[in-house]
C-alpha cells in the first residue's frame, strides 16, 4: 500500500470511488484507503450491526466524540449510527464542556469515545457537579482505537454508570466495525462474512494453533475499491477458543496484546518512531539519540520525547533553549497530531543500549 501510494492498488476506476481515508503524518509513509459507495454502505452495515448487538436501537441518541475528517472513528460511526436509525449528535473531538451540555440537553444515551477521553469526560463532570447517573441518560459507550485493559473498562463503567464495549477496527479494512464485543464482554466478534481471519506467527508466518497469540491477518471479502488479501495487521492477538454464550458463530478476538512492529497508538492516533526521528534530525543542535516515553497521568495517556543536545547547542542562552523545545514541540505536533512534552537533555544522558537502540518506553496502564 505504501509502495503504490496513493492510488496504485485501486481495483476500480477512481471515478467509481467516493471517498478516501489516509493515515496521519507527512513523513511516516502514509497509506490511502479508497471506498466505493458500496464499500461505505458495507462498512456502515458492519458497524451498525455491532451497535445493534450491544443494544442500540432507533430510539437512542448517539453522540460521537471522535474527530471527523481523516480519522475513521468520525464518519465511520456517523454513517453506522444513521443507518441504525439513531438520532446522531456529531459533536466531534474535544470541547468537553460542550460535550456535557449535549449529553444533558439532547438526552444522549450512546456515546463513542477513546478510553482516555472517557476518563476526561468524568473528570469534567465532577468539576461541573454533574452526576452521570442522575443527570444524564448515558447507558452504552463504544470504546476503541486505543489499547486499554479490562480494569480501564471497569473503571469507565463505574465512573459513568454505563456499559462500555470494546470496538476494533483499522483504516486499512475500513475503520471501526471490524470486530466488536457483544453483551458478554468477553472477546470481540470479528465479522466473518466480511473477513477471513487468520492468526500467524509473525516470524515464520505459519498459522498458530487455535487460542495462541500471533499476528492478525485479514482478507476482505466484499470490498470493491481496495480488496486486501492476507493483510498483515501487525496487531498481536488470539482467537478465543469455544463458543460464545450469546450464540453468535463469528470468531472472537481477544484484546490486542501489542504490535509486531514499532507503531505506537496514542489517543487513537497511529505514530511511528521514524516520524519523530525524521523531525528531530532536522535540528543541528540536537544529537541523534532520543527516547519516547508513554505514560498514564491522571487517566490520560501522554508522550514525552527526551532528546540530547549536540555540541552545536548554545547552552548559555535560555531564550534559545526555550524556543528550541517550543519549536520541536510544534513541529512534532504538526507531524504526529498529538502534543508531546519535549525534554532537552545533555548529550550522553540517555542510556546507551547494546545493539538495537531502545526508542520507546511504554509505561501506560493497559492490558
Amino acid at each position: 500500500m505504501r509502495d503504490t501510494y496513493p492510488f496504485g492498488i485501486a481495483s476500480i476506476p477512481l471515478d467509481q470511488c467516493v471517498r478516501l481515508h489516509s493515515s496521519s503524518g507527512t513523513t511516516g509513509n502514509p497509506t490511502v484507503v479508497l471506498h466505493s459507495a458500496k464499500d461505505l454502505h458495507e462498512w456502515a452495515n458492519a458497524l451498525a450491526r455491532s451497535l445493534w448487538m450491544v443494544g442500540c436501537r432507533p430510539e437512542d441518541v448517539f453522540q460521537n466524540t471522535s474527530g471527523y475528517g481523516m480519522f475513521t472513528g468520525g464518519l465511520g460511526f456517523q454513517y453506522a449510527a444513521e443507518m441504525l436509525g439513531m438520532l446522531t449528535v456529531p459533536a466531534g473531538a474535544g470541547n468537553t464542556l460542550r460535550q456535557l451540555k449535549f449529553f444533558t440537553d439532547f438526552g444522549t444515551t450512546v456515546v463513542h469515545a477513546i478510553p482516555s477521553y472517557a476518563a476526561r469526560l468524568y473528570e469534567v463532570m465532577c468539576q461541573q457537579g454533574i452526576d452521570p447517573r442522575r443527570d444524564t441518560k448515558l447507558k452504552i459507550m463504544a470504546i476503541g482505537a486505543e489499547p486499554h485493559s479490562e480494569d480501564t473498562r471497569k473503571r469507565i463503567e463505574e465512573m459513568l454508570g454505563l456499559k462500555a464495549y470494546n470496538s476494533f477496527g483499522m483504516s486499512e479494512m475500513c475503520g471501526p466495525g471490524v470486530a466488536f464485543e457483544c453483551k458478554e464482554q468477553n472477546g470481540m466478534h470479528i465479522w466473518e462474512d466480511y473477513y477471513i481471519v487468520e492468526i500467524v506467527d509473525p516470524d515464520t508466518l505459519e498459522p498458530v494453533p487455535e487460542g495462541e497469540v500471533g499476528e492478525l491477518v485479514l482478507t476482505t471479502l466484499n470490498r470493491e475499491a481496495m480488496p486486501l488479501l492476507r493483510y498483515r495487521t501487525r496487531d498481536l492477538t488470539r482467537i478465543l477458543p469455544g463458543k460464545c454464550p450469546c450464540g453468535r458463530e463469528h470468531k472472537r478476538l481477544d484484546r490486542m496484546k501489542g504490535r509486531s512492529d514499532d507503531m505506537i497508538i496514542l489517543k487513537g492516533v497511529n505514530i511511528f518512531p521514524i516520524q519523530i526521528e525524521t523531525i528531530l534530525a532536522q535540528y543541528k543542535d540536537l544529537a541523534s539519540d532520543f527516547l519516547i516515553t508513554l505514560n498514564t497521568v491522571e487517566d490520560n495517556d501522554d508522550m514525552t520525547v527526551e532528546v540530547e543536545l549536540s555540541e552545536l547547542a548554545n547552552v548559555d542562552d535560555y531564550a534559545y533553549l526555550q524556543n528550541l523545545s517550543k519549536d520541536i514541540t510544534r513541529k512534532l505536533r504538526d507531524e504526529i497530531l498529538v502534543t508531546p512534552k519535549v525534554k532537552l537533555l545533555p548529550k550522553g544522558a540517555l542510556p546507551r543500549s547494546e545493539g538495537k537502540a531502545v526508542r520507546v518506553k511504554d509505561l501506560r496502564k493497559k492490558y
Partner: protein
Amino acid sequence: MTVQQISVFLENKSGSLAKVFRTLSDAGIQLITSTLADTADYGVCRILCDNPEKAYSVLSKEGFSVTKTEVFAIVLDDRPGRAADAIACFAEGGISISYLYSFLYEGKGVLVFRTSEMEKAVALIAANGLVEAKL
C-alpha cells in the same frame, strides 16, 4: 577585553552538579565564581575559572554539554551606587543585557554581564571610564 565563561547544561538530577565541580577540581582548575539557574526541566551552571580553555576541554571530554561565552566583567569601586551607575550607562546607551551577576574578587565588586551587542558595549565601557576586571 571580555572574559570567557563556561556554561554547562545540566539535567535536574542529583549529582549532576557535583560531577561538574569534581571534574574541574580533578583537572586542577580553580573556580572564581559560579551561578546556577534552573527551569523545571534543566539547569544551566555558569562558571568563571582560572583556565576556561582547559575547563571547556575537560568538561567536553567528560561528555557534558558545554558552551564558551564571552562576557564582560567590570570592576566597581567599593562605594554605594557604583553598580547603579554602571547599569544606567548601559541602559542609556541602549544595549540590552541578557543576564547579570556579581561577586567580590580581591576585595572589589565585580559585575559580570552578557549582551549580544558586543561592540556597543566595548564603546560604552571606554566612554564611561569603566574598568574591566582581570581575572
